[in-house]
Each structure stands twice: as structure tokens, then as C-alpha cells.
């Protein structure tokens, strides 16, 4: 008859375990299935009239940043950081590409001018490249190694320490 008394505490064990698992995971952290996989190819017409494609950048480490002029304040916070990092490391072979999503051309050009971006930036008509990369919102940044694999994905505004660390690891990598 004692087992009956134990029944209620025993039955609550799996529920507590389930809650412990559920509350310890961050419901907002959704892991990208693309990390450590090869980055989807893209070919876009840049704002400066040129063409940017992943295939042409093969063998070079790439920082692929998704932004929009309406993405305030996050995109405005990280924009000077991106430009500074690009200037500092471009001679070491680093590549940087910005993809502008769901934007108007006038607003996008104003954004580019405001931050004086010198790396290639391109609009994404139909958000095709964004969907192909599993972009939820802006800003999102993908760090693609020389092999064309996505080494790391960052959601939200970049911090100087994180950007520098990821760029260093890309430059060191094969």
C-alpha cells in the first residue's frame, strides 16, 4: 500500500524534468540548420551597378551582412563597425557584402551614403537570397569561411569584440 503514497511524487518527476528542460532553453534562440553547411549561392546586382556572387568570392573569407534602412537602431549601430572592420582587414583578403532587404532604393542609397559603405551592397529583389539564408529579421550576419561553409551566424547588432573575433577566426582558417 505504500507504493500508492509514492505514486503522486513519482508521477510529478517526469513533469518536473520536462519543465526543467523547457525553461532552460531559450525559446527565441532558433538554431540555423545552415551553420557548418555550405552557404547557398547568390548572384545579385549591386547598388553600384556591379554584380556580386558567392561563386566569384570563393576561396576568400566573407562577412555577409543583411540589413535594411528601416532597421533602426540595430543596423545603424553596427554599420560604422562593419565599414571600419572592412577597411582594417580588406588587405588581408577579407570580403564583405551587404544585402539590403525589403527596402526602397532611395532609402537604401541614403543609408549607404550616410555610413559611406565602400564594400559591395546589393538589394535582394523578392527576398529570395534572404529566404535562402533563412533570415528572420535584420540585422543578421553570416561568417563564411574560405571553403564556402557558414562558420557562424549572428542575429542582431554586432559588437566590436564579436565581429573582430569571428573575422580573425575566418582569416586564420583554411
Amino acid at each position, binding site marked *: 500500500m505504500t507504493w500508492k503514497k509514492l505514486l503522486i511524487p513519482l508521477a510529478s518527476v517526469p513533469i518536473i524534468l520536462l519543465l526543467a528542460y523547457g525553461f532552460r532553453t531559450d525559446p527565441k534562440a*532558433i538554431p*540555423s540548420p*545552415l551553420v557548418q553547411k555550405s552557404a547557398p549561392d547568390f548572384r545579385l546586382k549591386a547598388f553600384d551597378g556591379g554584380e556580386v556572387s558567392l561563386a566569384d568570392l570563393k576561396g576568400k573569407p566573407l562577412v555577409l551582412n543583411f540589413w535594411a534602412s528601416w532597421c533602426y537602431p540595430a543596423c545603424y549601430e553596427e554599420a560604422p563597425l562593419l565599414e571600419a572592420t572592412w577597411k582594417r582587414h580588406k588587405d588581408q583578403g577579407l570580403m564583405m557584402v551587404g544585402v539590403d532587404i*525589403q527596402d526602397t532604393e532611395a532609402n537604401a542609397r541614403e543609408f549607404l551614403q550616410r555610413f559611406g559603405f565602400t564594400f559591395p551592397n546589393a538589394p535582394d529583389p523578392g527576398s529570395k537570397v*534572404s529566404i535562402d539564408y*533563412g533570415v528572420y529579421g535584420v540585422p543578421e550576419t553570416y561568417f563564411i569561411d574560405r571553403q564556402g561553409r557558414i562558420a557562424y551566424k549572428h542575429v542582431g547588432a554586432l559588437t566590436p569584440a564579436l565581429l573582430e573575433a569571428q573575422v580573425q577566426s575566418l582569416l586564420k582558417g583554411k
Partner: protein
Amino acid sequence: MIRRMGRWASARRATWWLTLGVAFVPWWGAAHVYGATNFDLEDRVREIASELRCVVCQNLSVADSPSDLAKEMRNLVRELVRQGKSREEISAYFVSRYGEYVLLSPPKRGFNLLVWGLPFLAIAVGGGAVYLVARRWTEQAPAHRPAIDPAYADRVQRELKDREQQ
């Protein structure tokens, strides 16, 4: 009088035909613009999009969301359907980009089975418990009947006998 009636009737008939004609315009227009196959295509797009989560919304499907990203996703689904891709291929594409999170109903395997199985398990266990408790109540009912005082029972029997003899 007869002529006037006739005119009145023909005017009414003309109105009737006109109304019928006007009523057909939207149908004709829709059929003309979309064509039968496009209705099928849109149904198919809706069916597939309603199973995909709008990733920038709270609990809305790609089919129901007014957001720009959902609109672009619907366009992409439409394009893939036009290319002859199956429903499974299209959802597999979205899962490969966004993970299983993009599916509104989690696939029935692994850890997800808990979500599908637990409610039924709870109903079964709860139903079993209700059955056991109900059975115990009905079985215990006679045992709980209070014992009758023998003197009182004798008196009842005696009085019944007296009544029969009267």
C-alpha cells in the same frame, strides 16, 4: 391598357436580363483573369503556405500573415509549385533553411512525439482513474449501509404481520 401592360412587362423582363447579366460580370471577369488552372494553383499555394510558420510573426502561417516576408514566401511557394515541386519538396526546402521551427505542426517523430502523444496518454490515464474510482464507489455502497437495529427490524416485521391479519 393592354399595350401599357405589355410595355411594363417587357421593361421588367429587360431589367431582369440586365440584372442577370450584371451578376455574371464578376464571374466572367474572374474566370477570364485567372482561368481554371490558376484557381487550382492558388489553392495549392494556400495549402502549402498554411503549413509554414511566418517567421517574423507570432503564431501566424505564411498564408495568413500580411507581413512582407510572408508575402515573398508565398511568391516563392507559388514559383516552386509552378516549377512542379511537390508539397514535401517545398516544405523540405523551407526546413533546410529555417529548421523544423518553420513547420506549424511539428513532425511526428523523436522528442516531438510527446506533443502528439501526451494529450491522448493523459486522457487514457485520467479515464482509467475515473473508471477505477467510480467502480470503487459503486462496490462500496452496500458496505456503507448502516446496520439496522434488530429490535427495530423485529417491530417492523411484527407490525406488517398485524396489518396483514386485519
